[in-house]
């Protein structure tokens, strides 16, 4: 039976949770037991990493689904080395000489910190380009979107790095712990004025976003009041940053030690005011109180869903996925991995209706593109300046396409993940779609050259890694099985093959002969050009089809 027929049949029996769109699905968190082929591997990798290289697919296809997901959720690679000073040609930084890291040096100099901010962005792009086979980098970006902060506002490089590191090291741990740590993180204290929050002049900025954006969200079932925000703000008074040590401290003199009583939404709970150093314990009480509400688990699960599955959350997905997922989240006392594990191992995640429907974010498009085509960057160990220049070029493109890493538009993160009703479609507009094409065109046609180093999509290494590149049919299918999630029909594939790989000829052996001639003598300019021109045309064309924007 066709899967969708099956679903339709089921739908008739369960009209109570009927999908809003006729193409949505009823499937839920039941563990997926269907085929585990390269297609499913590719789907899993495109969603949990940035792009799926052929080597990645090979690696996980040799494992079971459970093994693959467990590995993805349990990174073993060391944390990335911290960012280096790549700006000293413009701004000397006495605290961190050229080529050394600046993250442990406290500087208040604006010029130096501007250098560090950009160094951070270059570095972050590099970390994503060099990600290990795990979800670590995608979940880090997820949290950077969730706890939206802007480097431009934080300004101080060491705090920017520390905030990012917090998300990377805590992003697969316990969410409640993460919220606590973010609440007292210097970068966040600066970004949402927490470090100015005083008993004499409470600042509601962080308290509001803590509830509205970071934990409870908004919606018909979320009924905290303005007064609750004010009470929470008073609880959070007293957090400060020691300018010398650059560590968070608690200043009891700035803390409001009165009792704080909340609305009926929180059951009229009172958080007892504490004096002295115990004042900071109220923050734990506040977080415990917020986490007593089921909305926290649902809100976070919805965010995860929109990042990793699809943006449409209809009644069926709410009932069949979000509710049980949120229950898992609460049962695990807000550990993040059990939620991700249950989601990625579910029927719903592998439902054909949830495959290929994710519009790539700019980061996904750019990093995935560089990784899948095996674009070689200068080695950072020996040529850090060149490497950082290239990473900077890449991070600039992310910004050009609408996702300036480190600087989302505001504390809400990127609109593609919250703005009804368009969501992911916001990434693609009349300005950004041509730029996506421009990026892939320029990367494959001319690349980017600086200081005699060049990054470019060389079609040869990718093609050489394919199992049977001498067969034009296999070459095309195997390429699509790495870079595409949307299937192309045989008719379209035949057209592409004949028009491009065969230069209009009808016999496959013309390609085979050309390929074999190249493999036999890779140094021959003429045979190499024959192959390279055709592969470039093919790959450029594929990257320009709308299908390429989906994962």
């Amino acid at each position, binding site marked *: 039976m066709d899967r969708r027929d099956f679903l339709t049949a089921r739908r008739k029996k369960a009209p109570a949770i009927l999908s809003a769109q*006729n*193409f*949505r699905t009823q499937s839920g968190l039941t563990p997926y037991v269907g085929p585990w082929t390269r297609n499913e591997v590719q789907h899993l990798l495109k969603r949990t990493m940035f792009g799926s290289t052929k080597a990645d697919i090979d690696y996980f296809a040799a494992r079971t689904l459970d093994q693959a997901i467990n590995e993805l959720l349990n990174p073993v690679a060391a944390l990335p080395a911290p960012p280096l000073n790549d700006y000293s*040609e413009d701004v000397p930084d006495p605290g961190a000489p050229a080529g050394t890291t600046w993250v442990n040096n406290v500087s208040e100099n604006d010029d130096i910190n501007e250098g560090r901010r950009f160094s951070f962005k270059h570095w972050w792009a590099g970390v994503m380009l060099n990600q290990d086979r795990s979800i670590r980098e995608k979940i880090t970006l997820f949290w950077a979107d969730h706890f939206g902060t802007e480097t431009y506002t934080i300004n101080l490089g060491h705090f920017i790095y520390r905030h990012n590191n917090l998300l990377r090291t805590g992003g697969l741990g316990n969410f409640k712990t993460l919220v606590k740590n973010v609440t007292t993180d210097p970068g966040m204290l600066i970004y949402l004025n927490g470090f100015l929050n005083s008993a004499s002049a409470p600042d509601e900025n962080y308290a509001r976003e803590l509830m509205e954006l970071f934990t409870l969200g908004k919606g018909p079932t979320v009924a905290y009041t303005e007064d609750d925000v004010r009470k929470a703000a008073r609880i959070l008074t007293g957090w400060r940053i020691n300018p010398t040590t650059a560590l968070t401290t608690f200043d009891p003199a700035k803390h409001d030690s009165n009792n704080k009583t909340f609305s009926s939404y929180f059951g009229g709970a009172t958080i007892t005011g504490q004096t002295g150093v115990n004042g900071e314990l109220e923050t734990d009480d506040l977080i415990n109180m917020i986490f007593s509400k089921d909305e926290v688990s649902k809100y976070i699960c919805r965010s995860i869903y929109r990042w990793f599955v699809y943006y*449409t959350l209809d009644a069926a997905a709410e009932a069949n996925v979000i509710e049980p997922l949120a229950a898992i989240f609460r049962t695990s006392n807000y550990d993040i991995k059990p939620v991700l594990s249950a989601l990625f191992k579910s029927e719903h995640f592998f439902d*054909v*209706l*949830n*495959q*290929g*429907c*994710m*519009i790539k974010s700019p980061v996904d498009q750019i990093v995935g593109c560089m990784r899948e085509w095996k674009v070689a960057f200068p080695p950072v160990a020996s040529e850090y300046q060149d490497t950082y220049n290239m990473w900077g*070029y890449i991070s*600039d*493109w992310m910004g*050009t396409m609408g996702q300036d890493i480190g600087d989302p538009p505001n504390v809400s993160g990127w609109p593609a993940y919250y703005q009804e009703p368009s969501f*992911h*479609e916001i990434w693609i*507009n*009349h300005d950004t*779609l*041509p730029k996506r*094409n*421009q990026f892939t*065109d*320029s*990367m494959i*046609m*001319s690349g980017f*050259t*600086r*200081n005699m180093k060049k990054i470019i999509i060389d079609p040869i290494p990718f093609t050489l890694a394919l199992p049977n590149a001498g067969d034009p049919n296999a070459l095309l299918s195997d390429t699509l099985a790495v870079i595409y*999630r949307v*299937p*192309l*029909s045989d*008719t*379209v594939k035949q*057209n592409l093959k*004949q*028009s*491009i790989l065969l*230069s*209009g*000829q*009808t016999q496959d052996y013309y390609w085979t002969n*050309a390929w074999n001639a190249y493999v036999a003598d890779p140094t021959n300019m*003429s*045979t190499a*050009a*024959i192959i390279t*021109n*055709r592969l470039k045309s*093919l790959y450029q*064309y594929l990257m*320009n089809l*709308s*299908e390429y924007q*989906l994962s």
Partner: protein
Amino acid sequence: MRRRSFLKNSIPAAAILPALVDGYTVKAFHAHSPLMQALMNPAIETDHVLVIIQLSGGNDGLNMVIPISTYGDYFNARSNVAIAQNKILKLDGYANTGLHPAMTGMQALYNQKKLNIVQSVGYPQPNFSHFRATDIWMSGSDADQVVNTGWAGRYLNTEYPNFPDGYPNTTMPDPLAIQIGSIASLTLQGPAINMGMSITNPTSFYNLINNVLDPAPNTPMGHELTYIRTIANQTNAFAQRIIAAAMAVPQQGAYPQDNSLADQLKIVARLVKGGLKTRIYMVGMGGFDTHSSQVESADTSIGFHASLLKELSDAVKAFMDDCQFLGIQDRVMGLTFSEFGRRIKSNSSMGTDHGAAAPMFIFGAKAVQGVTGTNPTIPGGASVNDNIPHQYDFRSIYASILERWFCVPPTTLQTILFKNFQSLNIVDNKACTGVTDDPNQSAGEQLITNYPNPFTTTTTIKFKTKGKHTLIQIIDMLGRVIQTPIDKEYTQSGEFTVDFNSGALPSGVYYARLQNEQTQQVRPMLKVR
């Protein structure tokens, strides 16, 4: 192309835009333009159009244009495929040479003074690989050179040097070149170094054309695919230009049925008449790789090759008739080419193997009627190794078209084709009379120029940077980086100069490539002795 001074012009040069029109892939060099402009600016177009017909597979020129004056040698060399002498179609006033009996259309065009047949076109040290020979023809390189740009692409680059900065501008909103019938063509590839910056968007045509593309399924994936395709289509106002042009032509002449080349040429005529300012159209047909069963053994005038030649001949004839019907025949010139001809001596499979030089057709109301050159010399007792040597270099044809039809001045011609080639009287050279103005050179935003150009040793490159990292590379015609005069950070925007001292480098074409962050522009420079 130089334009007549009373015409304004500007053409976006670069983006490859493969897509589909009436079931045919279309590849265009384009830029955006507002839909309203397309609808409100139905100016009468008077400029010249070139239609390039590619015959893929290696066309057997010897059975297409048949040497009557040396018929005996011809017959002896390939008796199993030779066309019977009494079936050869005659040309008015020219007894030495005739046409394949399937080509009544071409015969009629010749007799109507709309056809020039150029004999034995090829190049030294011919290559017998389809791919390599195709690349040579399309790039216009020597046999031992690997050039990754196309001759037409380089022409466009010299005409519109500032593209794509400041494009589109109001004077020319249309694709510079459109390819129908195939996706990839090196012919239209400008210097690779600056063509990569434009928008390539095949998707945009999918909704426009209504067939062949995979339909979007009724799934979330299909929903998003449709969304992206819609944006792509809207983004590409060029699609709207084509629709507008197509809509503007309610009636066309008759074309033969079941003839894919005719279908393609019908689209070309429609777009030309509809007001597109596009200069170059590429169309094509395949199947010319006739190693076996090229002819019927019972009657060598019919068979597979005869069907191909009939398709070609009927299509071109219908196209020229339609151009006359539509009143655009004085603006349209066409040529045919194939990557090579076939061997003089046929094989025992009733076919012919890969060969060398072959004839080309130059057709159009402004073509000079005649047969250029003489019949190929066919050795008595031709052996399997005997090939037809070239009388004319294929780049002479390109040069003659560029010079006489697109009015390209001599130094620019040399920049495009790397050398000087013989000019042939195949196109009415009055076409360029009175052409003086050259508005394209200054259209758009000029980011890099050089003076003097041509130069002998040193030339000064003037460039604009928007600030930040700026790179200038000197690249030779084979794509090798020769020098990197500028590779540094600029703290602010501005206009700067740097000298390029070519020292002992050989004379020829060099490209100065400007890369400024996400922007690129390329300036061709000609070094002369």
